[in-house]
């Protein structure tokens, strides 16, 4: 018997306390998840409509017509990495960060990669590895994602893109599929590309008239669209974070329960052993006294 009864009892007590905490955290995450999930779900139809609108616009526009659509030789790449501010959510952050590193070493090796980090986790991770981010934001994804934040971040990126400092912009985030699954997604934000079709000069059909003119509409709609894409990614990531935390805490609670069970068994065994030992001692001493 490795542990004394008292030790086991103390251990059970501490695990029970941990279990209480993880259970509470699971509840909190579940409540937050509901809100974040609602926000993300309501945003989806909006995003799809906007994408439809942009895609019908883009399909009737040559990519030379607007700077945000223009392709060029890629030398500088901006990666927007969305992670959480807080931990205890399983592999949620790790998956995104691993994917980012993989991209930096494969697809974008030889290119100048600039990181724009959202969430404290990404910041700490790359700081530890000696990679200095171009921008780092934390504490903006707490209980809800704010469009104004997304807009601010994107304004800077759009400005960099327009003055030629960056040639491509990607966002890497966890997409909320369901409570159990968050899929790491890499999405190209700039230059704007809808589907796989590259608009060329030949297949342009003027389906629409523009009011006041095409230029104005494109200039209003396209920046808004990329901002909305980032905002959507933030919403999805937030919902994913709470889902991941909820699953992680649920697993932790179950594990704690199992540990308590096995420790209780150990405790009972130890108790039984000590009772048996005492009985043996008593009976042997009685036997000894008889003689």
């Amino acid at each position, binding site marked *: 018997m490795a542990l004394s009864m008292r030790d086991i009892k103390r251990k059970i007590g501490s695990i029970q306390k941990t279990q209480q905490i993880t259970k509470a955290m699971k509840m909190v995450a579940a409540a937050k998840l509901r809100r974040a999930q609602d926000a993300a779900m*309501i945003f989806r*139809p*909006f995003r799809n*409509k906007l994408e439809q609108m942009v895609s019908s616009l883009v399909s009737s526009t040559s990519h030379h017509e607007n700077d945000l659509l223009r392709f060029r030789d890629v030398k500088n790449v901006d990666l927007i990495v969305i992670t959480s501010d807080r931990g205890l959510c399983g592999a949620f952050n790790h998956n995104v960060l691993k994917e980012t590193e993989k991209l930096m070493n494969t697809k974008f090796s030889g290119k100048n990669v600039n990181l724009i980090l959202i969430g404290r986790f990404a910041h700490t991770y790359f700081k530890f590895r000696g990679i200095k981010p171009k921008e780092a934001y934390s504490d903006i994804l707490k209980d809800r994602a704010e*469009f104004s934040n997304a807009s601010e971040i994107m304004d800077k990126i759009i400005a960099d893109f327009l003055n030629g400092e960056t040639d491509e912009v990607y966002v890497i985030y966890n997409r909320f599929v369901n409570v159990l699954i968050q899929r790491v997604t890499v999405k190209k934000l700039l230059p704007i590309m809808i589907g796989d079709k590259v608009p060329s000069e030949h297949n342009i059909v003027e389906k629409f008239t523009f*009011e006041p003119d095409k230029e104005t509409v494109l200039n209003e*709609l396209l920046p808004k669209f990329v901002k909305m894409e980032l905002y959507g990614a933030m919403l999805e990531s937030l919902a994913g974070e709470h889902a991941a935390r909820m699953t992680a805490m649920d697993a932790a609670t179950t594990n704690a329960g199992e540990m308590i069970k096995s420790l209780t068994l150990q405790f009972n065994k130890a108790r039984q052993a000590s009772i048996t030992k005492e009985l043996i001692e008593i009976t042997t001493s009685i036997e000894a006294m008889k003689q």
Partner: protein
Amino acid sequence: MPELNVSIVTPSKKVFEGKVEYIGAPGKLGEFGVLPGHENFITVLDVGLLEVQPKDQEKMKLLIVGGYFEVTEDNVFVIADEVMAKEDVDLEKAKENAQKYKNELSSLSFDDANYERVRRLVKKYESMVELAS
């Protein structure tokens, strides 16, 4: 009689979806109305009131802030940053704000960087007052 399929969405909710006979919106170059059979077009909206006339129902008025308007073969998409119905407006507060930003606007010159932003705010609160009263 042909009808328009209208859907109005914002990032936080789906405001309206259904068949209407007429929709009027505040365009950048002035208000316009769309009836069934309208030519396909896309435009940018100003801050202002959107009028929707569903069939056999009362006319609906909505305040719209920062939006796009698309017509494709009698399908109308309105995408906006913010949409408010009459019930969402606090009249007193709107009046107060309208006055406040109007004063601010009159102190700004036409080429001030904030002019456009404040003008939109004035328009927003004035439209709110118009909507609620």
